[in-house]
C-alpha cells in the first residue's frame, strides 16, 4: 500500500534533511544574500532555469525553501513559494494570471486588504473584480466573463465567519474553465485541505495560525498543480512564450508546476516580495506545533462559544458551529475537525460598551492580528475594516458592535474569568 507521512509528521520534518556536513538537526538560518557559483556554466544554468538551486535570496533561499517545501507538503501541492506576507501572495497570483483587460470573480466575504487590492488597486492596472456573496451561487456563475482568469475566495470569511460551500463553487469554476484560488489562512491544512476539494491555488498568511507565535510576518502561494492551463488560450502567461529565458513555455516545459515557475521567474524576480530567512526560520518553529495548537484552538473556541452564548452581557454570538449560523450545515459537512477559532460577538450596550470591554481585558490582547497562540480581541469597524465602506462592511457580514475574538491557547478558566470581569466593566458603561 502507499505510504505518505501524516500531517503531524510533515509539520515537523517536511523540507529538511539534516546535512551530512554540519549535522544540524534544526533548520539552519542561511542569512545570506547570494550563493557561490561552481563555475560560469553553473551560473548560467541557474539563471536559465536549467536546474534547481539558489542564486540570490530575492528569488530563493535554502531556509525559505524548507518552509516552502513544508507548506507544499502539508497542503498536498506540487510546490510553494514563500513571500513577505499573505498580501504579497495574493498579489503574486493576481499578477501572474491576470493582465490589463482581464477580470476576476471574488466572493465578497474577504479580509479587508484582500478586498482593497482587488477592488481599488488592481483596477488601476486594468484588472477588474466582480464581488458576489459567497452564498449566491447563481450570482457567482453569472459574474464569470470570457476574460475572467480565476475565482477568488476565503473558506471562512474574515471577519463575518461565513463558510463557503466550496464544492459548489469549484463546480462553477470547473464549468467555466477557470481555477479557484483560495486564501486558506483561517483554516490551515489541519482543518481543511483545499486541493482535495478541487481548489487549484492556495494563498496563505503564514503570520496567523501557521506561525502562531506572532513574531514573524510571512505568506505563501501553494500550487495545486491540478489545473490544466493548456486547455484553453485563457492563460497566455503560462502557455505562450515568456519574455525571457529564450521564450520558454512554462506549461509545456514544466506542466503542473508552470504557475510556480512563472512566479519564481517573474514574480519574485521583478517584484521582489521575498521572505527573510530569519522570518522563515521563525515560521518553521511555529508550524512544527500546528496540529497540537489547532486542536487546542478548536477546543478553547468551542468552550468560549458556549460561555459567550450564555453570558447575559452578550447580545449575540456568531460561529459556524452554532446551529443558528447561516452556514452551519456547510461547516458541518466540510469542516468536521472544527470551524476555526474565530468568534464574533456583540456586547450589550453597543459601540461604547464594546470599547469598554476591549479596554478592560487583561489576559486577551487588543491588537490587529488573528491566529496567535495568545487570545486576541479587536473592534473591526474602527480598525481592520475602517477603510471599507459601510456597504462593503455589511456585505462582508460586519456590524458596528461586533467584537472579533481570536481564541488562543490559554487556560480556558483564565479566559472565562478575564472575559467575565471585562464584560462586567462593559455593563457599567452600558447602564
Amino acid at each position, binding site marked *: 500500500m502507499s505510504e505518505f507521512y501524516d500531517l503531524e509528521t510533515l509539520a515537523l520534518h517536511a523540507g529538511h534533511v539534516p546535512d551530512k556536513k554540519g549535522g544540524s538537526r534544526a533548520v539552519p538560518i542561511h542569512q545570506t544574500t547570494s550563493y557561490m557559483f561552481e563555475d560560469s556554466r553553473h551560473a548560467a544554468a541557474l539563471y536559465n532555469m*536549467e536546474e534547481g538551486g539558489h542564486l540570490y535570496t530575492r528569488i530563493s533561499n535554502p531556509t525559505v525553501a524548507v518552509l516552502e*517545501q513544508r507548506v*507544499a507538503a502539508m497542503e498536498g501541492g506540487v510546490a510553494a513559494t514563500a513571500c513577505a506576507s499573505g498580501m504579497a501572495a495574493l498579489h503574486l497570483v493576481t499578477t501572474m494570471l491576470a493582465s490589463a483587460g482581464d477580470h476576476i470573480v471574488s466572493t465578497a466575504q474577504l479580509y479587508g486588504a484582500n478586498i482593497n487590492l482587488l477592488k481599488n488597486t488592481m483596477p488601476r492596472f486594468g484588472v477588474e473584480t466582480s464581488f458576489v456573496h459567497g452564498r449566491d451561487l447563481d450570482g457567482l456563475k453569472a459574474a464569470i466573463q470570457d476574460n475572467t482568469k480565476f475565482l477568488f475566495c476565503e473558506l471562512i470569511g474574515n471577519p463575518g465567519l461565513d463558510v463557503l460551500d466550496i464544492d459548489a463553487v469549484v463546480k462553477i469554476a470547473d464549468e467555466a474553465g477557470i481555477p479557484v484560488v483560495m486564501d486558506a489562512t483561517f483554516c490551515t491544512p489541519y482543518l481543511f485541505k483545499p486541493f482535495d476539494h478541487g481548489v487549484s491555488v492556495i494563498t496563505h498568511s503564514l503570520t496567523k495560525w501557521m506561525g502562531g507565535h506572532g513574531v514573524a510576518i510571512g505568506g505563501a502561494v501553494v500550487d495545486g498543480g*491540478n489545473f490544466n492551463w493548456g486547455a484553453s488560450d485563457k492563460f497566455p502567461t503560462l502557455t505562450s512564450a515568456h519574455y525571457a529565458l529564450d521564450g520558454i513555455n512554462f506549461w509545456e516545459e514544466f506542466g503542473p508546476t508552470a504557475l510556480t515557475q512563472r512566479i519564481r521567474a517573474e514574480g519574485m524576480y521583478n517584484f521582489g516580495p521575498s521572505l527573510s530567512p530569519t522570518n522563515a526560520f521563525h515560521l518553521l518553529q511555529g508550524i512544527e506545533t500546528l496540529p497540537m495548537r489547532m486542536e487546542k484552538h478548536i477546543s478553547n473556541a468551542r468552550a468560549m462559544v458556549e460561555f459567550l452564548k450564555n453570558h447575559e452581557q452578550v447580545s449575540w454570538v456568531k460561529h459556524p458551529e452554532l446551529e443558528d449560523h447561516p452556514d452551519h450545515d456547510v461547516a458541518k459537512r466540510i469542516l468536521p475537525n472544527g470551524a476555526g477559532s474565530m468568534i464574533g460577538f456583540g456586547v450589550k450596550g453597543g459601540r461604547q460598551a464594546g470599547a469598554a470591554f476591549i479596554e478592560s481585558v487583561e489576559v486577551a490582547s487588543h491588537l490587529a492580528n488573528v491566529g496567535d497562540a495568545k487570545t486576541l480581541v479587536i473592534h473591526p469597524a474602527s480598525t481592520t475594516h475602517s477603510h471599507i465602506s459601510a456597504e462593503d462592511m455589511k456585505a462582508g457580514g460586519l456590524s458596528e458592535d461586533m467584537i472579533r475574538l481570536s481564541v488562543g491557547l490559554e487556560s480556558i478558566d483564565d479566559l472565562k474569568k478575564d472575559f467575565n470581569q471585562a464584560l462586567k466593566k462593559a455593563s457599567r458603561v452600558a447602564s
Partner: protein
Amino acid sequence: MKFELNGHEVYVSTGGRDHQQGQPFLVLIHGAGASHLLWSQQSRSFAYTGYNVVAVDLPGHNLSGGEPLTSVEEQAAWVLSVMDHLGASKATIVGHSLGGLICLQMAHQAPDRIEKAVFVATAARVPVGDPLLSNASDQEQLAKDMMTSWGLGPDAHHFDNTVPGFSHVGVGLRTMDRNPEGAVAADLNACNNFTSGPENAANITCPTMCVFGGKDKMTPLKFGLKLAELLPNNTLYVLPDSGHTIPGERPHELNALLREFLKA
C-alpha cells in the same frame, strides 16, 4: 516541439532550444505513468550545453495524442520513428524504468542508430506484481499513489528537493494525472510482458552506463545489478541514498555522470 506522426500529435521537449545542425542527439525516455516532465532537470541543462534534446511524451501521455502503446516493442519502434522524423540517424538514448526497457529493445531493433545507452533505475526484467497491476486497471488513483510512494526515496518523502519549494510527492502525482486514463495500466503491462530484456542486454555492443538508486523500492538495486552484469561494455554507478526517481531526486549527480559518459 509538436508534430504529427501516424495521424497523431506528438510532443517532445527540446529543452527549450531548437535543434542545431551537427549537434549530437540525446533521447530521454520516461518510465511508466510519467512523461517528459520527469526530465525537467535534464532537458534544459543538456539542450543548452550542446545536445539536441528529445524528451518524448510517449503516445497517450501528457501532450502526445493517440492511445498508449501496450508493448515495449511498439514503444521502441515509435521512439525510432520519432528519431526518423527529427532526422536523428544516431542518438544516445537514456531510459528511466520502463524507458530503460525501451532502450534495451531499441538497441536490439536498431543497433546502428544507438551511439550509447544509459539505463536509469531499471533492470533487464521489470515484472509488476499484484496488487499494483490489478489496481492500475481497476483503481488507477490507488496505483498512482502506490507508484509515487514506492517511486521516491526517504529524502524525497521528507520533501528534500534541489528545486526550491518543490514537492516530489506532489509533482509525481500530478504528473501522472496529466496522462489520460489507461496510460498507467498500459505501461505497467508493457513492463510486465517484456521478457527479451536479458537477451537484448547481453547483445548490446555500444557503450552503456547504468545509474541505480540504493534505496529504490520500485526496481530494487539487486535487479539493476543483474542488468549491469549482462551488459558487455558497461559502467555502473550506484547513488546510495536515491530512490527510484533519480532524475528528480539526484539531478546534479545524474547530470554530472551523464555529461562525463557523453564526452568519453
